[in-house]
């Protein structure tokens, strides 16, 4: 039943954009004008979209590694370490993504000097750092939740087999967590990909910036809806398969 609903979602999306564009067209112009403009600008906007994907992949990779460490810190035996990790996690989880992004854009240096050579740090790298922080905090919570969802009998069983705490964690607990962590992790990736347009606010030339540039060059108000609508559809087509796959994995795990 759910799968049938998904098919309709695409129809809905396309319908929404088409209807809105048709409504926006003045009587003398036709829909081909908007379509032609869209095709003309598609390569440039597509280039921007590649940057969106690149930012999201880097932020996800680094964020996952850091988040894994932070999450393991949260379940650590040492009281100070778990407290510190929990505080860091809550801090970066509760701060708005956009504010963290601003923070990194303004506070991180725009170039660094390493043994005599000056390295310029482009805007998009700093934006990626800004997006990595909330990803890290969210992964940390996913790890903690997964570790705590493993029945305590597993810990006791491993202890009776004379495994040390770190052996239990790496050989018994984490392999089981992997399956539980995958759906929320993929969900997080979709959220991250949907958050990459935030980087346009701080001047990174990704898809949304490119769309605005294209619209600025065209100077035709009837193109506003088709262009932004097409961008919405592009993101939808990228995020929606992830959502579908996540739902399928969750359904499999639930049985």
């Amino acid at each position, binding site marked *: 039943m759910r799968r049938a609903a998904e098919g309709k979602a695409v129809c*809905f999306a396309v319908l929404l954009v088409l209807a809105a564009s048709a409504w926006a067209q003045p009587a003398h112009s036709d829909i081909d004008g908007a379509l032609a403009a869209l095709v003309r600008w598609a390569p440039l906007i597509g280039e921007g979209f590649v940057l969106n994907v690149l930012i999201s992949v880097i932020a996800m990779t680094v964020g996952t590694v850091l988040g894994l460490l932070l999450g393991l810190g949260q379940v650590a035996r040492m009281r100070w370490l778990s407290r510190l990790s929990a505080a860091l996690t809550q801090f970066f989880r509760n701060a*708005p993504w956009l504010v963290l992004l601003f923070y990194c854009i303004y506070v991180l240096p725009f170039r660094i000097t390493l043994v005599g050579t000056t390295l310029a740090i482009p805007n998009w790298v700093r934006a990626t750092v800004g997006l990595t922080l909330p990803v890290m905090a969210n992964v940390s919570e996913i790890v903690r939740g997964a570790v705590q969802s493993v029945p305590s009998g597993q810990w006791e069983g491993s202890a009776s087999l004379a495994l040390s705490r770190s052996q239990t964690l790496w050989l018994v607990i984490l392999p089981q967590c992997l399956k539980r962590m995958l759906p929320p992790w993929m969900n997080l990736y979709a959220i991250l990909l949907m958050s990459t347009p935030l980087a346009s606010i701080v001047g990174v030339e990704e898809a949304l910036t490119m769309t605005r540039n294209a619209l600025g060059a065209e100077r035709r108000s009837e193109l506003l809806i088709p262009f932004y609508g097409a961008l*919405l559809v592009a993101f939808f087509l990228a995020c929606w398969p992830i959502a579908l796959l996540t739902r399928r994995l969750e359904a499999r795990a639930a049985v």
Partner: protein
Amino acid sequence: MDLIESLFRELNASAGINLTIVYDPFDRSRFWSGFLMTVYLAAAALLASLALGVLGAAAQKSPIAPLRWLTDGYVAFFRNTPPLVQMYFFFFGLGSITPTVPDDLGFPTPLIGNVAWAIVALALFAGAFNVEIFRSGLEAVPKGTAEAATALGLTRLQSFRLVVLPLAFRTCLPALNNNLVNLVKTTTLAYAIGVPEMLYVSNQIWSDALNVPEMMTMLLLVYIGLVSLLVWAMHRWESAMRLPGFGER
């Protein structure tokens, strides 16, 4: 008050930590109005998104098929597109075709301003999540409960309103809590369409007073305070409405 003001002036002079929003009345009033705008955006979008969530969850159960498709489509589309692009689509896209009215000076101004569009975009975004949350809550109530209520002589509507809905609401409260926190954080996106909320006014202040790190940190702390307050209040409410016999403790 004067003492605090002079204290922060002193802090600026001695340590170089320039928190103009504490001692400068103009900056203080700007920041305060930004704070109020953020709260207003969050509250308005919250109420609208809750209404959307309830309506959507009801529509998903409707016998009219097109209404169900429309709701499913709305939920899938708004959950899987970037909220910022949604906001641009609404404000710049749909805003370009909405009628304009002349303002006091005779210039045409859009009938629906940027604040209203921000609320519309935020409500539609959060509402899509709320529909799913309410649906899962309603599905979590065992069918037998509603049947038992009907067996006691309640009408279908009564059993829904008095038995199913209160139970469903308690089940979905944690997820709702999560979504509402997200909504408060998403209000920052209104910055992009020029709504003078907290991030926007902070940007103005740090551009004037050149105190970027101080204002940034302040902003971050205020947001975390706001979110923590909401989380705390919702947790209190959650435990006050807790059903005996469910969950731990």
